C-alpha cells in the first residue's frame, strides 16, 4: 500500500519539493544581505530608547525595495500552500478514483478500503504539515531582521506585530493546522461530490471562508480579552482624532500603552463615568479648527491653543479617557496552539467521516 501511495503521490511530492527548494534558494540568497543591512543600521543587540528610531529607519529603508516585495511574496507562498495542498492533493484522492472507476480496481486488491485510506491519509497529512511548516520556518529565518525591527518599535514600513493577521497566519504552528485541514477538507469534498473539479472548487470556497471567518470572529474570542482605560495623553503618537471644531469626535489607539506586541481589538473614548462617548465637550468645541484639517497635524500651522495636541489636552481635561480592549502579547502561543488545535480537530472529524463513508457507501 505504501508503494502504491508513493507511486500515485510521486508527481505531487516532486513538485512540492521543487517549490520548497526554489523558495529556499531565493531566501538563502537574499537573507544574509538583509541581516547585513540590519546590522549596519546598528540594530544588532540594540538596547535603549534610541532603538525604536533606528528600527524605524531600517524598516523605512527596506520598504518599497526588493526586500518588501520578497517579504510579501514569501508570506504569500505560506498562505497559498495549504489551499494548494487541499486542491491538488486532497480533492482528487478519492474523487479521481471514483471518477475514473479505478476505485473498483484499487479496492478489490487484498487490502481493505480502511487501510487504503489510512495509508494515503497519513502519508498525505504528514507531508502536508511538513511542507507548510518548512515554508514557514524558512520565512521566519529570512524575515528575522524585519520581525526584530518591529519588536524594537518600528512603526512604519514592512512588518507588523506577531498578532497581525498576516503574521499570525504564516508563523508559529498555524500553517501546519491549515495544511492538514485543507487536505482533509479536499478529501471529504471529493468523497461527497465524487468529481474532482467541483470538489476542488468547493474545497477552495470553504477554506477561504474559514480563513476569513477565523481571524475576524473566532480568533479574538479564543480567550476573554483584557480591558484597560488609559489617559488620552498616554496614547502613543499617532493617535488619530477627528472632529475638532465639530460637536463629535473620534479617538482611536494604534497600540496598547505599556503592552508592546499586544493585539489591539478595539478602542474608543469614554467619559468620566466610563461610558462610551463621541460628543465633544462644549469647552473643547472651539479648540482646533476645521479650516486647517487638511494640513498634516505634524506640520500644520495652528494658532496658539489650537490643533490636535491642544484638542487632545482639552479632552483629557474634561475627563475623557481611552478604553482599549486587547489580547496581551504573552498569549501568542496559547492562541497559536488553540487555533491549530481547532483545525486539527476539524481535520480529524472529516477524516473520521471519510473512513465511515468509505466503509459503508464507497461508491
Amino acid at each position, binding site marked *: 500500500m505504501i508503494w502504491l501511495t508513493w507511486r500515485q503521490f510521486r508527481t505531487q511530492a516532486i513538485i512540492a519539493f521543487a517549490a520548497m527548494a526554489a523558495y529556499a534558494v531565493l531566501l538563502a540568497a537574499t537573507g544574509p544581505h538583509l541581516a547585513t543591512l540590519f546590522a549596519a543600521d546598528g540594530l544588532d543587540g540594540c538596547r535603549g530608547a534610541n532603538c525604536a528610531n533606528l528600527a524605524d529607519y531600517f524598516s523605512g529603508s527596506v520598504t518599497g525595495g526588493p526586500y518588501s516585495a520578497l517579504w510579501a511574496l514569501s508570506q504569500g507562498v505560506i498562505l497559498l500552500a495549504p489551499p494548494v495542498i487541499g486542491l491538488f492533493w486532497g480533492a482528487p484522492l478519492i474523487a479521481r478514483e471514483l471518477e475514473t*472507476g479505478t476505485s473498483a480496481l484499487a479496492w*478489490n486488491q*487484498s487490502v481493505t478500503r480502511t487501510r487504503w485510506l489510512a495509508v494515503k491519509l497519513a502519508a498525505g497529512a504528514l507531508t502536508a504539515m511538513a511542507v507548510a511548516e518548512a515554508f514557514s520556518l524558512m520565512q521566519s529565518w529570512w524575515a528575522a531582521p524585519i520581525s526584530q525591527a518591529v519588536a524594537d518599535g518600528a512603526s512604519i514600513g514592512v512588518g507588523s506585530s506577531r498578532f497581525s493577521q498576516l503574521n499570525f497566519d504564516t508563523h508559529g504552528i498555524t500553517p501546519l493546522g491549515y495544511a492538514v485541514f485543507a487536505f482533509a477538507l479536499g478529501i471529504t469534498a471529493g468523497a461527497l461530490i465524487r468529481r474532482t473539479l467541483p470538489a476542488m472548487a468547493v474545497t477552495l470556497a470553504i477554506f477561504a471562508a474559514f480563513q476569513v471567518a477565523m481571524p475576524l470572529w473566532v480568533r479574538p474570542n479564543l480567550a476573554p480579552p483584557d480591558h484597560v482605560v488609559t489617559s488620552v495623553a498616554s496614547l502613543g503618537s499617532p493617535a488619530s482624532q477627528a472632529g475638532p471644531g465639530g460637536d463629535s469626535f473620534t479617538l482611536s489607539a494604534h497600540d496598547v500603552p505599556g503592552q508592546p506586541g499586544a493585539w489591539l481589538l478595539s478602542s474608543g473614548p469614554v467619559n468620566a463615568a466610563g461610558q462610551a462617548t463621541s460628543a465633544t465637550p462644549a469647552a473643547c468645541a472651539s479648540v482646533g479648527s476645521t479650516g486647517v484639517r487638511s494640513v498634516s497635524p505634524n506640520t500644520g500651522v495652528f494658532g496658539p491653543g489650537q490643533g490636535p495636541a491642544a484638542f487632545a489636552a482639552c479632552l483629557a481635561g474634561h475627563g475623557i479617557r481611552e478604553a482599549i480592549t486587547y489580547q496581551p502579547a504573552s498569549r501568542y502561543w496559547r492562541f497559536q496552539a488553540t487555533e491549530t488545535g481547532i483545525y486539527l480537530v476539524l481535520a480529524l472529524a472529516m477524516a473520521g467521516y471519510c473512513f465511515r463513508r468509505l466503509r459503508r457507501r464507497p461508491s
Partner: protein
Amino acid sequence: MTAVIETPVIETRGLGKRYRRRWALSDCTLSVPAGHVVGLVGPNGAGKTTLLSIATGMQAPSAGTIEVLGGRPAAGPAQLAKVGYLPQNAPVYAGLSIADHLKLGAHLNPAWDAEMARTRIERLQLDPAQKAGTLSGGQRAQLALTLAVAKRPELLILDEPVASLDPLARREFLRDLMESVAEQDLSVVLSSHLVADLERVCDYMIVLVASRVRVAGPVDDLLATHHLLTGPRRDPGSLPGGVQVISASHTDVQSTLLVRTSGPLLDPAWTASAVSLEDLVLAYMSTAAADGRRNRHLEVQK
C-alpha cells in the same frame, strides 16, 4: 453430473438495492454453485451490475443478505483475496505503466503470482513500459483480467467483460479467460446481456429479469429439458401435466410452443425439435415481461 455438495460461491436472500427511490435490485434470491463458469444473463437494467457490485462489496445492500464464498463481501483482507473482480469497462490507471500495474498487484496481494502475470503480459505481446492510458479497449481488458487472475482468487467475477470489445478482441478475451480457468481451480461468474458471448464459455446459466431469477441451471440440463414444439393450432392448456409452456406463438393453423418437460413427449400431434440456448434465454426474457409475477422462482431439478 455428479452431485457436488459445496458452499455456493454466491448466495443471496431477498437481496435489494435502492438508489434514492428507485430499486435497482429487489428481493433477489439466488444461489450460484461452485466449480462452474456461470453466465448471468438478462436485459439491461435487470440488476446484474448491482448484484455483482454488492457481491464484491463495492456497494452495500439496502435489504436482504448475501454471502460470497461463505463470507461477507469485502469483509477483510482474506475475503478480498478470495475474490477477483473485473468491473465494467475494465478501469486501469491511465498514468501508470503495465509494469506499474503488476507491481501494484504484487504489493497489494499476498498470493500474487508474479510469474503468471509476467507470462500473460508476454503472451499478449504488451510492452510493460507502455502507459495503460494508451492501451486499446481489448488490451485494457486483458490487463485488468491479468490483475484479477494473478491474485489467485477462488472466485472471479466479471461484469460485462466483453461489452465494449470488437468481435475479434471479444473472442480472444474469452479464449484467454477459459485458459486461465483451466489452469486454476476457479469459479467464474460473468454477466452479459448477450447470450452469444456466454454460450461459448459458460456451463451454467442464470437468467435474471427485473431482479428475479427466471431460470437457472447447467446449460446441458437446460437444453435437454426444453423443446420447441410445432403442430396444428390448439390450446396449450391441453398439453399433458408435467409440461410447462414457456412461450407460445400462433398462426391461423399452427402453434409453436417452447416447453419444458422432464419426461419424453409422447403426443404425436407435435413435432419436437431442439432449442438453441439463445432462443431459450430470449423466451424466458420476453415472457418475463408478459406474465410478470407468475413462475417467479423457476429452478431446474438436477
